[in-house]
């Protein structure tokens, strides 16, 4: 009798434990949610993909469907002069970044899905232009991924600058994981490095490799939609959408292969396996991977003192679970994960402003400032 009673109980307990342990540690905690709140900087933007700060009171924000806003004291004005944006699936107008010397030269960079030449479909392109008020001129195409494809997925895309005068930007695998990410002759699934004028640095890792695309800096990526510079080390930190259960944080090093789709911690959306391999010689391991996936898009370090006990922490937006994640990292390991602003909305972008506050691009809302109570 007792045996019959306990057997299902044990099975139940075992089941619960095995479910819990499926989360890749550290387990995400949900502390008191009243510690943080948000203030709206600008509203009425469907998918605020990219943003950059002209000053404390003025920002540029992209809306994925193809609108660039110049926002001054909360008032948004449309910028004219964009190229024709190819809207398909996850692609549209994406990231934006001010030239490091924007104050003097008024140059901005942005990435967009475009259809330019021959074949049907589109791919991710990097442009620069000169911004005067709300007018964009001297538009210049700096890079365009090839070939065009009608696939809707994985366009990237983020832009960052390091402190050595280079620009980095990402293109996702464009829905062709079998061909693109591991082939240096093909675009897609790559992080690219250019000089600020769009030329290719002569010491790029594959600059002398025959047939390789010389703008490539690292490869084997799936869909990098978060990228930022570490405030102390100057390293490039990136996050990318994996398949089901394979979202990653990586530190990007010159010429390295990050493994997709040969190695991954994720599986197909259908639950079937992509590969049994989690690691391989010559391929980088992620600094952290999320199981379950949170769908990370946008990330930033908090380098200021405006928040208590957050200096040096990494903040990542979750599109899937609609919160901001705070990650404490020690000696190259994530030791703590916390949900901040649970249910704030689909967080598309995270940036630290010149005032030291964190700003979020939240879908259906706009840009929100994170404040601590």
């Amino acid at each position: 009798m007792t045996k019959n009673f306990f057997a299902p109980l044990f099975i139940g307990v075992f089941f619960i434990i095995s479910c819990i342990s499926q989360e890749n540690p550290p387990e995400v905690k949900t502390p008191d949610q009243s510690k943080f709140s948000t203030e709206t900087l600008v509203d009425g933007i469907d998918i605020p993909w990219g943003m950059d700060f002209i000053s404390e009171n003025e920002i540029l924000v992209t809306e994925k469907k193809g609108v660039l806003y110049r926002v001054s004291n909360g008032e948004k004005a449309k910028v004219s002069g964009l190229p024709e944006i190819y809207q398909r699936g996850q692609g549209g107008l994406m990231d934006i970044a001010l030239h490091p010397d924007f104050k003097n030269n008024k140059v901005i960079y942005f990435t967009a899905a475009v259809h330019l030449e021959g074949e049907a479909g589109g791919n991710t392109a990097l442009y620069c232009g000169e911004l005067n008020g709300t007018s964009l001129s001297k538009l210049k195409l700096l890079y365009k991924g090839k070939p065009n494809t009608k696939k809707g997925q994985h366009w990237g895309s983020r832009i960052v600058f390091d402190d050595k005068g280079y620009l980095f930007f990402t293109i996702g695998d464009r829905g062709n994981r079998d061909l693109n990410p591991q082939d240096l002759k093909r675009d897609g699934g790559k992080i690219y490095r250019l000089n600020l004028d769009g030329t290719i640095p002569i010491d790029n890792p594959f600059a002398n490799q025959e047939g390789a695309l010389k703008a490539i800096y690292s490869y084997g990526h799936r869909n990098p939609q978060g990228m930022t510079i570490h405030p102390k080390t100057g390293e490039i930190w990136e996050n990318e959408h994996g398949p089901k259960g394979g979202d990653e944080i990586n530190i990007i090093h010159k010429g390295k292969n990050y493994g997709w789709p040969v190695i991954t911690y994720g599986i197909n959306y259908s639950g079937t396996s992509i590969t049994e391999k989690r690691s391989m010689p010559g391929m980088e391991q992620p600094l952290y991977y999320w199981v379950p996936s949170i769908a990370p898009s946008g990330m930033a370090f908090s380098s200021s003192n405006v928040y208590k006990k957050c200096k040096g922490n990494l903040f990542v937006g979750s599109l899937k679970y609609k919160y901001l994640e705070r990650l404490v990292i020690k000696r190259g390991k994530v030791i703590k994960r916390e949900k901040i602003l649970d249910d704030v909305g689909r967080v598309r972008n995270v940036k630290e402003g010149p005032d030291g506050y964190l700003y979020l691009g939240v879908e259906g809302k706009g840009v929100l400032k994170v404040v601590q109570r």
Partner: protein
Amino acid sequence: MKILFGIMGLFILFEVTTLYQKKPLKQSMTDGEEIYQDFCIQCHLDTGEGVSGVFPPLAESDYLLNNIEMSIRGIKYGLSGPIEVNGEEYNGIMEEQGLENEEIADVMNYILNNWGNEFEEIITKEKVASINK
């Protein structure tokens, strides 16, 4: 006389080909599955179950099956604001995906005839074309 038969023959051939230009449901569903895998699966998931409170389900979804035109309009032009699906409220944004009318018809046919869904009418690209913002 021979010429007349010839012309008649051509006419019949023409009629038959136009009649059968309409894509059969099976083909449309197969093409629709490809679109689904490409554009929809990230949010609505593999078997259309969605994510409770975040992405509405498509499988046995009362909103979908009772609002065919609204659903097509949503795929064609985007959908945002609060909707109720199977008793649960959703307030998200589905962006316009940039799909062609035929692709929208195909993916609708795939969704409407899968995961426990059944729908009598075949959605055609003409039907999609007739739906305005």
